[in-house]
């Protein structure tokens, strides 16, 4: 396995931790989710190109399609939060008080 995988795994773990640890904006967590999708795309493409898995080349494109779906859904939820509270701060999501 080539050495570039170590860095791509590290990038995925970094965005995963960035998504799980909140600061003030909900939008930052969505951006970290997009980063996870990007690192998964690069990992998948590098594996497929290294091992000549020809028919699996359609898999990164399908991954992009579903990542676009999920990004659009996350953005629509953020827009609704921003419409209700004015900003997209995470501390506004406090209806569940336990």
């Amino acid at each position, binding site marked *: 396995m080539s050495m570039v995988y170590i860095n791509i795994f590290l990038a995925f773990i970094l965005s995963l*931790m960035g998504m799980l640890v909140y600061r003030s904006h909900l939008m930052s967590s969505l951006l970290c989710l997009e980063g996870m999708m990007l690192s998964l795309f690069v990992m998948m493409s590098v594996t497929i190109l*290294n091992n000549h898995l020809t028919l699996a080349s359609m898999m990164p494109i399908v991954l992009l399609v579903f990542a676009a779906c999920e990004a659009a859904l996350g*953005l629509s939820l953020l827009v609704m939060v921003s419409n209700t509270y004015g900003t997209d701060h995470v501390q506004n999501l406090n209806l569940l008080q336990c």
Partner: protein
Amino acid sequence: MMTYIVFILSIVFVMSFVGFATKPSPIYGGLVLIISGGIGCAIVLNFGGSFLGLMVFLIYLGGMLVVFGYTTAMATEQYPEVWVSNKAVLAAFITGLLSELLTACYILKDDEVEVVLKFNGMGDWVIYDTGDSGFFSEEAMGIAALYSYGTWLVIVTGWSLLTGVLVIMEVTRGN
């Protein structure tokens, strides 16, 4: 040095991921995500995947991040936070950069690293050879097979995109 170009690009990839994973204001995070998308495209291009690299630029950066950009412009604040304006963000950024540099030095010391699997440095610039594939590019033919062998896949992804649009319209209806 050119044999290490993919490794250097992947180090810069991780550093740009540190840049938005430390979460400054989202507009700066989006900017750094655009840069890391470009570097990810360069990594894929170096392994010979020209169509997949251009897909990153066109669909990912040109489609998804543009939407993120104007949604951020809609919900942004008057004084956005940079990496140097908050001590926690700056400390996390410098810690991330330093740990990446230390990891790179440890990897480059000898050409082989064993964590769970055995990683070696040869695979960056030489690819396993499984014989002659003729005059066509395997990756482009594989993607073109999406429409012949993968017809059901196209139907499922198209339907899920349509359903996603309907779900988003219902979510943003409000009241």
